[in-house]
């Protein structure tokens, strides 16, 4: 056998059709500045941002327009223009949410962000402050404020920084193209992150089908100005959900993250490749997060592309940039098709956590209802955590969600491998969600009494 067995996680997982060929070969293309952006105050985990601009103000791209408060992140103007009255606008996750709307107007294209010559020798607190001020959140989809992830509790020691370039969701290639276009920024950003948390090594995990990215990253590793911490690109098997934090940590470090714990429990911090690149921009140039790269793809898009667009751009404009949506689109998925959320329409703004827009046609799962569980155990075999979705689902169906704890309902992070594999077409992730909600409500009631 010629090939070497690549590392991966311990059990379960699935191999959906990758569908990446439509965009994997296409470089990132920048969307022209839109006429209007809607910037929701809440596009991260933590408290919503507080506006510091008012109606009629002229703002320049890069200018801070809302403060992050104690747990959130600030927000910046992503185009130069006039602030419209503060209003509620449709939000990809909420129905309506307060947003700062900027209408494009003439003015300087962007604030200047000169290099800080001392960027390679900054202290930890200064680096975290810059990351926070730049409004950076986890760009892999979670949208957790990065500065909070970097503020490790006193007892927690991190020895390894894992950079997540796995991109295991089908269809998505935004991270892959970012690794090819910005290897330098990713490697330096990762090294800055490693310094912040005191890690002794950096491991960049990429799935085996993205070896082109490894070549570029290796070039950047060889020429970085930030010395002292070893960086290695570690190819891992192509297997969903390889890009889930705990699965990637096990693949590249061999350490198993306990259920419901964070990777820091085993001395690892995970950051997405695009987040690392944003951290580099923030620390070296104090440049805030203004754009993001997303893959616009799927059978319902005329010209699938990897697009860099200003945050707040309406998704309809982004899709139009990709040739428009075909009339037979049945699902618009924000994110990847496994864990992404189906959107009701396209007049919604691009938010920080959105790494893809997948337009699907035809009939999807769960549209014809579902059948009874036949106990084929495909879900048990697919679960990367060794949970029992079959047992959870039949108990929820029987109106006994409180009996699901022994079958692991609380550990589930909803990767969807079980639902994907179920021959009866059962929405097993949703049964898990019902079980979790019921168990948590019961725990809260117990705690209160």
């Amino acid at each position: 056998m010629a090939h070497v067995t690549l590392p991966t996680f311990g059990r379960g997982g699935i191999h959906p059709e990758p569908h990446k060929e439509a965009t994997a070969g296409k470089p990132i293309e920048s969307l022209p500045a839109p006429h209007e952006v809607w910037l929701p105050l809440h596009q991260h985990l933590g408290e919503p941002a507080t506006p510091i601009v008012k109606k009629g103000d002229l703002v320049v791209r890069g200018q801070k327009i809302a403060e992050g408060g104690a747990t959130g992140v600030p927000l910046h103007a992503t185009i130069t223009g006039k602030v419209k009255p503060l209003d509620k606008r449709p939000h990809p996750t909420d129905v309506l949410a307060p947003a700062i709307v900027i209408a494009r107007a003439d003015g300087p294209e962007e604030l200047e962000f000169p290099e800080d010559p001392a960027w390679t020798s900054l202290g930890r607190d200064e680096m975290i402050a810059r990351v926070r001020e730049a409004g950076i959140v986890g760009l892999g989809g979670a949208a957790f404020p990065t500065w909070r992830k970097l503020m490790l509790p006193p007892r927690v020691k991190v020895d390894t920084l894992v950079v997540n370039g796995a991109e295991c969701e089908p269809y998505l290639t935004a991270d892959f193209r970012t690794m090819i276009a910005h290897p330098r920024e990713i490697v330096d950003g990762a090294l800055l992150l490693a310094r912040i948390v005191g890690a002794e090594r950096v491991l960049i995990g990429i799935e085996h089908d993205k070896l082109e990215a490894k070549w570029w990253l290796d070039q950047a590793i060889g020429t970085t100005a930030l010395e002292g911490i070893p960086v290695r690109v570690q190819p891992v098997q192509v297997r969903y959900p390889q890009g889930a934090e705990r699965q990637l940590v096990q693949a590249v470090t061999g350490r198993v993250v306990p259920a419901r714990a964070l990777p820091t429990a085993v001395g690892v911090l995970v950051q997405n490749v695009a987040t690392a690149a944003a951290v580099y921009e923030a620390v070296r140039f104090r440049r805030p997060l203004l754009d993001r790269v997303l893959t616009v793809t799927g059978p319902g898009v005329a010209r699938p592309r990897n697009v860099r667009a200003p945050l707040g751009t309406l998704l309809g404009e982004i899709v139009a940039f990709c040739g428009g949506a075909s009339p037979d689109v049945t699902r618009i998925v924000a994110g990847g098709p496994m864990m992404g959320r189906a959107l009701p329409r396209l007049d919604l703004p691009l938010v920080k956590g959105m790494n893809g827009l997948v337009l699907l046609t035809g009939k999807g799962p769960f549209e014809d209802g579902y059948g009874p569980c036949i106990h084929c155990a495909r879900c048990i075999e697919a679960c990367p955590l060794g949970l029992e979705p079959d047992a959870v689902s039949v108990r929820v169906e029987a109106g006994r969600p409180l009996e699901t704890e022994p079958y692991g309902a609380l550990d589930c992070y909803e990767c969807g491998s079980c639902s994907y594999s179920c021959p009866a077409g059962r929405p097993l992730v949703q049964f898990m969600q019902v079980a979790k909600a019921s168990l948590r409500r019961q725990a809260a009631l117990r705690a209160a009494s």
Partner: protein
Amino acid sequence: MSGGARELVLSPGPHLHADVSTSRIMWTVNAALAPAALWGAFVFGWNALAVIAAAIAGAAGSEWLVARWQKRPHPLRDGSAVCTGLLLAMTLPPLVPWWTAVLGAAFAILVVKAMFGGLGYNLFNPALAGRAFMMATFPLAMTAGWAAPRAGFTVALDGLTTPTPLAVLKEQGLEAAFRTLTAAGSPWASLVLGFRPGSIGEGSVVLLALGAAVLVARGIIRLTIPLAVLAGTAIATAFSGAPLLHLLSGGLWLGAFFMATDYVTAPTTRDGQLVFGLVIGLLTGLIRVFGGYPEGICYAILIANTLTPALNLWFRPKRVALAGTPS
């Protein structure tokens, strides 16, 4: 602006699904069984074919009735009722009156399956429970309805019956048993090809193995249970003087590959399946060697079915790093 898409689906994720469905699985099982069943009709004659048709019709008709009462659409689309009927027929002697097969199939679907909650909820394998019901209600037809194998649709219903090799083995010993196996020249060829008295669909080890290979290749069954059944039978019959005869006789292959592997009535984890298969094999051998019946696979599987809920409790999938466990 584009985005004029209408009728958008807002269902939660995942938005992709594996190319697999319950009905595809069931119809594939039916197709995998068909060659062995048709071989039985070919070898044992017209009545065998009538029994197959009657059992399928009885099962499908019963399923249809239940579905009508429950106002459930497309009762036969998932193929599970046809599968039950076909499996039941394959376990029956070729000369049983066809209408007894209708009753057996109706019992399987109405009592064993529907009354326990329908597809996915039955404790016992419906086809085998149907066969056990027929053993109790039509004992004579079920123990004497064996036909001698002939090639072609030539058997007239002349009531000429012949005992199965396992029955001869039980009553007259090994040599007599081998003397019944002459149809294909050598006794072993008669066993493997299926030229021997027996139930309609159990005879051709070759065709059953072929069908099972299709199911394994399609990822529908795993070999854990069948191999454990065969191993258990080999262990229990090791000292009977004819372990190989036991392994190639009776309904062992049909039961091991197509009935013990029934998802609903078998355990879900590999360890549970291993124990389940071994229990079936051991019981089959013990019944054949020490019990009152020449054949044992049917009752062995039904008894093991009662262990499935316990096996699912005892043999759980290994959780990946439970909360609080050091790694």
